[in-house]
């Protein structure tokens, strides 16, 4: 078994128009910049995939990574908890112009909905959001005298996730707080595509140290020295200028 894919372009080749794509990361920590840029590269060459629904905690920052994906016009709808950042201009302008749809989800509910999808739990109850505008239209139930909102699982066709070390079976470790949504998204997606800073043979990761077991991972591609969103933005990097210019 070898889940390694030789190139970023091949890794993102099978993502269809209209797909729901989960993208790991919390802000720049864990953002799979190279996978995202490979997906934009493909769109700029082929016109596909378009009309994506993207699930991420945020809505991008500056003009690279998720922000560039949105700026390229590939995203129809965003499901996130916090569409603000140091430089959220790309999303903000499209949103205020009515050109991108937003489903705002409380962060813990977002995490749990994704976790539920991976765990085969179609719905669960949470106290989060009860009595607020974000619970409008959702079923409510009382347990032990307290009111809860029913939330549904959130599945995806594809997850794009950044890991630290992968083995050829797809077992993953992460780096510090870059872990965040990664393990949940791998399990919630029909196809989890992972960029890893290091790929080792099966047996190269201590079974005790595995954070995402390989059963949740479908493709692994090596990105040995991955970009860090925050570093790119501090030097005002711009996907479009760098690719075009």
């Amino acid at each position, binding site marked *: 078994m070898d889940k390694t894919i030789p190139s970023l372009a091949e890794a993102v080749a099978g993502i269809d128009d209209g797909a729901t794509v989960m993208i790991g990361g919390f802000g720049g920590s864990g953002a799979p910049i190279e996978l995202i840029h490979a997906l934009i590269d493909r769109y700029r060459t082929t016109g596909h995939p378009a009309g994506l629904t993207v699930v991420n905690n945020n809505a991008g920052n500056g003009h690279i990574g998720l922000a560039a994906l949105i700026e390229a016009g590939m995203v129809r709808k965003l499901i996130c908890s916090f569409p603000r950042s140091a430089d959220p201009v790309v999303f903000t302008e499209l949103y205020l112009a009515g050109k991108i749809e937003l489903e705002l989800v409380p962060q813990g509910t977002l995490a749990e909905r994704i976790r539920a999808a991976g765990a*085969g739990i179609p719905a669960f109850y949470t106290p989060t959001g009860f009595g607020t505008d974000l619970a409008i239209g959702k079923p409510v139930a009382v347990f032990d005298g307290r009111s809860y909102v029913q939330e549904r699982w959130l599945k995806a066709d594809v997850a794009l996730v950044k890991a630290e070390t992968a083995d050829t079976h797809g077992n993953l470790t992460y780096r510090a707080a870059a872990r965040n949504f990664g393990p949940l998204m791998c*399990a919630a997606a029909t196809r989890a595509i992972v960029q890893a800073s290091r790929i080792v043979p*099966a047996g190269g990761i201590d079974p005790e140290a595995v954070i995402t077991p390989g059963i949740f991972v479908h493709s692994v591609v090596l990105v040995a020295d991955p970009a860090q969103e925050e570093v790119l933005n501090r030097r005002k990097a711009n996907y479009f200028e760098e690719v075009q210019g």
Partner: protein
Amino acid sequence: MTDKLSNAQIAWRAAQDIADGAYVNLGIGFPEMVAKFQPPGRQAIFHTENGILNFGEAPPEGEEDWDLINAGKKAVTLKPGAAFFHHADSFAMVRGGHLDVAILGAYQVAETGDLANWSTGPKGVPAVGGAMDLVHGAKRVAVITEHVTKDGKPKLLDRCTLPLTGVACVTRVYTSLAVLDIEGGRFILREKLPALTFDALQALTGAALHVSGNVADLHVPEL
């Protein structure tokens, strides 16, 4: 050829349908035997409910590590690429549809796909383990079983009479006499022992057998 397959032969036949790289859970007891018969060149990844992916055979006696056991509480070893995880993650793998195949034993299987394999009735101490999760989790749920009970009663029925493990969950049954798919609420006969006539098999089966296309001979090596 004997008049029916041995347990090892049933397990062998089931093993032929497991693809290379498949994620597989084998029920405790008889189904564990399937792991022995992986065809050359294929390597499935075995999952056990208690939190291991990619475990291997039992260690030599005296070298057991009793923190390294399978769901049947038997000592196992690890293969390269193994992983440990807790019980909620383990059943996320099960319930979340991440296993390619689960192979379970059965008291009874119905043409509806219903399975009864956890309770023979109100007497004794009931025990269910992970069976009810497995039948609603794996992408493909197969059963290996004798075709009839020890006293000759059919185990393949139109409706189960014992307490159910799951509803409409089994899609393939490997028995000591035949291989059957369950499709659209019917048993479709795929393979049968060559010496056995359709009518003879039907007489040993508590539900109507259907044919859709060819019925192949069930050929299994001596084991």
